[in-house]
C-alpha cells in the first residue's frame, strides 16, 4: 500500500511577513489541487509566537480547500514547552481546524486579543462589538482613534458581506501594549477586488487595487467610501493598511502608497495596524460635501 504523500508547513520559515504567509497558502492550495489525498504536517517547533493576522490566513486557505471539497487532514508538531500552541489554541486557531490539542488552555482574564471569529450577516454586529470592547477595555486608546476605528472596521466587515459574494468573513485582532498598536486582519475567500470592481469598471488588476481606496470607486452596490476612509484614517494615524487580493498587494502608510505583486490569494485580505496613541481628525473622512450640506440640514439637528 502506498504511503500517503505528506505536505509540511514549517511555521517558522513562513512567519516572516504577510507575503511569505500568502505564498505558503498559495503553495498549499496548489499542492492539494494536485494531491487531494495528501496529509499535512504543520510544524510549530522552533518558534514561540505567530502574529494572529498570519495564522488567520493559513486558516482561511485551509477553509478554502474545504469549500472546494478537499478535506485537509494531518497532524501538528510542537514543543510542549513552547508558548505558540497555547496561544493559537486560545485564539481558536485549532478549534476551527478541528485539531484536538492535549491539555487545557485557560483564557486570560485580561485578554488583549479577540479570538479568530467567523462572521456573517447574523453575528456581524456582535463580532464587531466584541472587538471594540476588548480594545476599549485593555488599551488607553485615543477617543478619536477609537471612533475612527469603529467606523472603518464596520465598513471593512460590511464590504466582505456586500461585495465578496461569500456569506462569511474571518476576523482577528490583538492589542500590543508595548507598541501601543492594534493589529487587525479581515479575510475572505470571495471574488476579490478586481472582479468586484469590474462589475462597473474596466480596470486591470493593478488599477483595481490602486483605485479601490479612492473616494467614489465602487462596484455599484456601495458608495466607494469604506476603503477611502480607512486609508485616510491610516495615513493620519501613522498606521499601516495592506490590501491583498488576487496577485496584488497594496500598502498604505503615512509615507507612501505602493503596490506589489504577490502570490495569488483567492479573495481579499485587509490588514490594519492602528496606533492607539496617535490622534486623528475624523472630519477628513466623515465630511464629504459637509460644508454646503450643513446649511441645508442643520435645522434638523437639535
Amino acid at each position: 500500500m502506498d504511503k500517503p504523500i505528506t505536505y509540511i508547513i514549517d511555521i517558522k520559515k513562513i512567519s516572516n511577513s504577510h507575503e511569505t504567509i500568502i505564498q505558503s497558502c498559495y503553495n498549499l492550495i496548489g499542492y492539494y489541487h494536485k494531491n487531494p489525498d495528501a496529509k499535512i504536517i504543520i510544524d510549530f517547533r522552533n518558534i514561540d509566537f505567530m502574529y494572529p493576522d498570519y495564522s488567520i490566513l493559513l486558516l482561511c486557505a485551509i477553509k478554502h480547500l474545504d469549500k472546494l471539497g478537499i478535506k485537509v487532514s494531518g497532524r501538528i508538531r510542537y514543543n510542549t514547552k513552547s508558548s505558540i500552541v497555547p496561544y493559537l489554541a486560545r485564539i481558536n486557531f485549532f478549534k476551527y481546524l478541528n485539531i484536538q490539542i492535549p491539555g487545557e488552555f485557560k483564557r486570560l482574564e485580561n485578554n488583549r486579543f479577540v479570538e479568530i471569529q467567523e462572521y456573517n450577516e447574523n453575528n456581524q454586529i456582535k463580532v464587531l462589538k466584541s472587538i471594540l470592547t476588548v480594545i476599549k477595555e485593555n488599551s488607553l486608546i485615543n477617543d478619536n482613534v477609537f471612533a475612527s476605528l469603529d467606523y472603518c472596521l464596520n465598513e471593512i466587515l460590511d464590504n466582505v458581506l456586500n461585495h465578496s459574494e461569500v456569506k462569511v468573513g474571518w476576523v482577528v485582532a490583538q492589542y500590543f501594549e508595548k507598541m501601543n498598536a492594534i493589529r487587525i486582519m479581515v479575510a475572505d475567500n470571495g471574488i476579490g477586488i478586481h472582479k468586484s470592481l469590474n462589475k462597473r469598471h474596466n480596470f486591470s488588476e493593478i488599477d483595481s487595487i490602486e483605485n479601490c481606496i479612492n473616494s467614489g470607486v465602487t462596484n455599484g452596490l456601495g458608495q466607494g467610501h469604506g476603503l477611502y476612509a480607512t486609508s485616510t484614517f491610516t495615513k493620519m494615524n501613522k498606521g499601516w493598511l495592506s490590501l491583498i487580493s488576487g496577485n496584488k498587494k497594496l500598502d498604505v502608510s503615512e509615507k507612501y502608497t505602493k503596490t506589489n505583486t504577490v502570490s495569488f490569494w483567492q479573495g481579499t485580505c485587509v490588514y490594519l495596524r492602528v496606533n492607539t496613541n496617535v490622534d486623528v481628525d475624523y472630519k477628513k473622512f466623515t465630511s464629504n460635501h459637509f460644508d454646503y450640506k450643513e446649511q441645508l440640514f442643520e435645522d434638523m439637528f437639535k
Partner: protein
Amino acid sequence: MTHTIKFREIGSSLGTRNLGAKIRLSILDKLESNERLLLDFDQVNVVTNSFANECFGKLRTSLPENEFKSKISFINANDFIQRVIISAL
C-alpha cells in the same frame, strides 16, 4: 403625535447597510402614524457612511423635501454622527 426612535436600543455602533435598510423601513412605517419623528442618538458613538446612506440618504430621496425636513429631527447626535448623517443626505 411625536414618536422617538432610540438608536441606543439598536446599538452603540451602527454600521451595516442591511441594518440601515431595516431601520429606514421602520422609520417610514412610523411616519404613517405619527406627525413627527425624533431620531435619538443618545449613547450612540458611531454611525457609518454605509448605514447613513442606506437609512437616511435613501429616506430623504423617498420623501418630499418638505415632509422630510418638517417631520424628522435628529437629537443628541455627537459631532461625528452629525457629520456622517449630513454628508449622506
